[in-house]
């Protein structure tokens, strides 16, 4: 059979049920194979949209996302999503067409050195040099993408090789002698970690996206509740530990705040989370990488703490902060073993009483807050709280990058993993809308909302056409303040309030834009009806784009100014009068 038909068989064998992509000259044979290949293909409007959709699909489902593009510009348009997937460890396989082998290296039409361009941003890549290599390369690509620390893998297939006839036999073995991720965790180290935790007076669990990737949220919760460990999550880890629990509390859906939850940590994290890190004597990092947005000034990060660092990628351990007890392994395996070891010790929970009274003091004194409007004006923070109410906290939420992303992370109390999909490492504006599209395709039963910025959404708004054509019912809520808001905030705070090229004006008219794309457009401007309006938008069939007009100049607080220590958090103003005692 043709190599491309074998490619379809391989994709099916890997359980692929959808591919996002766009055809071109160099992958014409591949697209011919889609005609009767038995795999759903969603035609996107820009390859970057397809790449982010594959990421959204992967993050929502935990399966490998797949995107196709042609050679040259098709492949270079994938560079941003590939980098994004690398930074956030998203399992994706990207398959690109390449010019015919006889044209390679001749600057042929639509030729780009895709393998060379993407080498620094992939977990691995395969340049196909013989059609017989294709089946094995595809299976190895999927294995590498989803195992160990997940990441993007690229397969580049020259056009002539893809239409070659090959003797296809299903591949049953992988030949990757140099790739053997350690996932079990060293038992001795785990026991040592349990001992350290049992004697810690001021412990904190600091969980990252690795917990979500490893599907280890249940294990994390069991570990945290095996004693009364305080838990904070990174931006990527939100949902790995439930922010709310079943209870009598006043929130929609009868949930109440989880008493062990400190909120997100880092630059725009909560004061309780950052102060707890600052005063902790033992920090147990799980699937997190001590990013500069977490540590602030490195030399003053958690100065009293010893560190347990659990990560499947040994290169992350002691990269930024030296670990006292390193454990290389998959979070799910390691946490399950750690709970057993910890329970066997029978630590006295009462030793944490003093620590909890300190933390509860911070929680009471420094809740997340903002000056709400007295009239109908919609404050951006309120917009997120309204979205929580309108969805009962049960939606998958994607976001772009900027203030709206931070407010969503702060105010939408994620109760479960894989509900929060955003671009953390790379910080890719334009991520949210196509990621929502991918998530909605992967999880058709769940409400999928995108909280977008008015700046970000324009970077991949073309995918509204894809949503309209395929009736992908995403609900996009644009937090519209007419600014590149986060940049405006930094210019206000750190560059003497001189605004340089951050004013986006009232362009475009998003309701008209939605209608032009065949999508329902709405505009909300009134706080008093916002929750009901949002419910109405969510109940509307098909994709909906909502222009939510919010306060133009509102700052995201609290905040650790760049290069400062966690205990020097600032804002909002009501808190600045008081310092941590």
């Amino acid at each position, binding site marked *: 059979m043709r190599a491309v038909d074998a490619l379809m068989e391989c994709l099916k064998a890997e359980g692929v049920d959808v591919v996002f992509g766009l055809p071109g000259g160099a992958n014409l044979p591949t697209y011919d194979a889609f005609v009767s290949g038995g795999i759903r293909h969603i035609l996107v409007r820009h390859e970057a949209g397809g790449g982010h959709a594959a990421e959204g699909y992967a993050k929502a489902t935990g399966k490998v996302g797949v995107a196709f593009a042609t050679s040259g510009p098709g492949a270079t348009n994938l560079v941003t999503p590939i980098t994004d997937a690398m930074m956030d460890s998203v399992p994706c396989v990207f398959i690109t067409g390449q010019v015919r082998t006889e044209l390679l290296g001749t600057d042929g039409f639509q030729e780009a050195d895709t393998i060379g361009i993407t080498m620094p941003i992939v*977990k691995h890549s395969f340049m196909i040099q013989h059609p017989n290599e294709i089946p094995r390369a595809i299976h190895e690509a999927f294995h590498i993408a989803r195992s160990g620390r997940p990441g993007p893998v690229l397969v580049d297939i020259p056009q002539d090789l893809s239409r070659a006839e090959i003797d296809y036999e299903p591949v049953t073995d992988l030949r990757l002698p*140099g790739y053997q991720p350690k996932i079990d965790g060293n038992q001795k180290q785990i026991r040592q970690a349990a001992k350290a935790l049992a004697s810690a007076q001021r412990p904190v669990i600091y969980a990252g996206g690795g917990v979500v990737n490893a599907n280890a949220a249940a294990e994390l919760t069991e570990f945290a509740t095996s004693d009364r460990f305080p838990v904070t999550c990174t931006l990527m880890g939100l949902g790995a530990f439930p922010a709310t629990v079943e209870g009598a509390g006043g929130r929609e859906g009868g949930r109440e705040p989880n008493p062990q939850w400190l909120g997100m940590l880092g630059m725009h994290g909560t004061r309780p989370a950052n102060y707890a890190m600052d005063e902790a004597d033992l920090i147990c990092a799980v699937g997190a990488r001590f990013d500069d947005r977490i540590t602030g000034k490195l030399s003053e990060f958690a100065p009293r703490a010893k560190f347990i660092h659990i990560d499947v990628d040994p*290169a992350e351990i002691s990269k930024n902060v030296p670990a006292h007890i390193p454990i290389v392994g998959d979070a799910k395996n390691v946490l399950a073993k750690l709970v057993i070891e910890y329970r066997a010790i029978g630590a006295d929970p009462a030793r944490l009483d003093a620590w909890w009274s300190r933390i509860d003091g911070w929680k009471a004194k420094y809740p997340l807050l903002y000056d709400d409007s007295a009239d109908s004006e919609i404050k951006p923070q309120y917009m997120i709280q309204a979205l929580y109410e309108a969805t009962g906290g049960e939606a998958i939420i994607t976001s772009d990058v900027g203030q709206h992303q931070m407010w969503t992370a702060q105010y939408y109390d994620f109760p479960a993993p894989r509900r929060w999909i955003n671009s953390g490492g790379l910080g890719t504006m334009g991520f949210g809308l196509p990621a929502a599209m991918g998530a909605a395709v992967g999880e058709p039963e769940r409400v999928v909302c995108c909280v977008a910025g008015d700046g970000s959404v324009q970077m991949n708004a073309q995918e509204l056409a894809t949503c309209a054509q395929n009736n992908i019912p995403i609900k996009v809520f644009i937090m519209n303040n007419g600014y590149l808001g986060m940049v405006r905030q930094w210019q206000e705070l750190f560059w003497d309030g001189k605004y340089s090229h951050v004013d986006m004006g009232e362009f475009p008219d998003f309701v008209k834009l939605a209608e032009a794309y065949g999508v329902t457009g709405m505009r909300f401007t009134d706080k008093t009806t916002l929750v009901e309006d949002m419910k109405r938008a969510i109940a509307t069939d098909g994709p909906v784009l909502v222009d939510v007009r919010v306060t133009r100049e509102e700052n995201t607080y609290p905040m650790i100014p*760049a*290069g400062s220590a966690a205990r020097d958090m600032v804002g909002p103003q009501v808190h600045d009068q008081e310092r941590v005692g």
Partner: protein
Amino acid sequence: MSVFMGEPGTKAPLSLEELEASTNLRTGRKHVLSILVENKSGVLTRIAGLFARRGFNIDTLTVGPTEDMQVSRVTLTVDGALHPIDQVTKQLHKLVNVLKIRDLEPGDTVARELALFKVNADGAQRGELMQIAEIFRGKVVDVTKRAVIIEVTGTTEKIEAFETMVRPFGLIEMMRTGEIAISRGRSET
């Protein structure tokens, strides 16, 4: 170093001295890394690219076949003070085509490189030059009226010592292969 260095949030201008301070740290022990890799296209690019983007500086690099056709060996030397060697090897291990890495201890290793020196040798000087070559167990591989080419094999230190000796004669050109290294004793490198 300023706490704000590299942060977009501060408008404080950054002095050149401050910027350059971090690049003047090269003092550490040399590490010889012996890396077995799958003999596949692009492997060397992956290794070189990894070093470049992580800011690791390669001092010397040699690549060649091994006794196994499917496997090549890369021997490279890096400055251990400038880059945490642990981080270098961990990042290398993440490359799918890298099979094995050894950070060779100088005491347990036989290391050699080959160098060719093209030196000015007008009549009167030639005898003295030949004597120096002999002391270093060098071989004269080409002689013309005005120049000789000498081949020297040995450790980096020996080759550098030879270079110091012949430089006064007028060193026209020098070429070095970079070190290869093999562990002492029965066990495999």
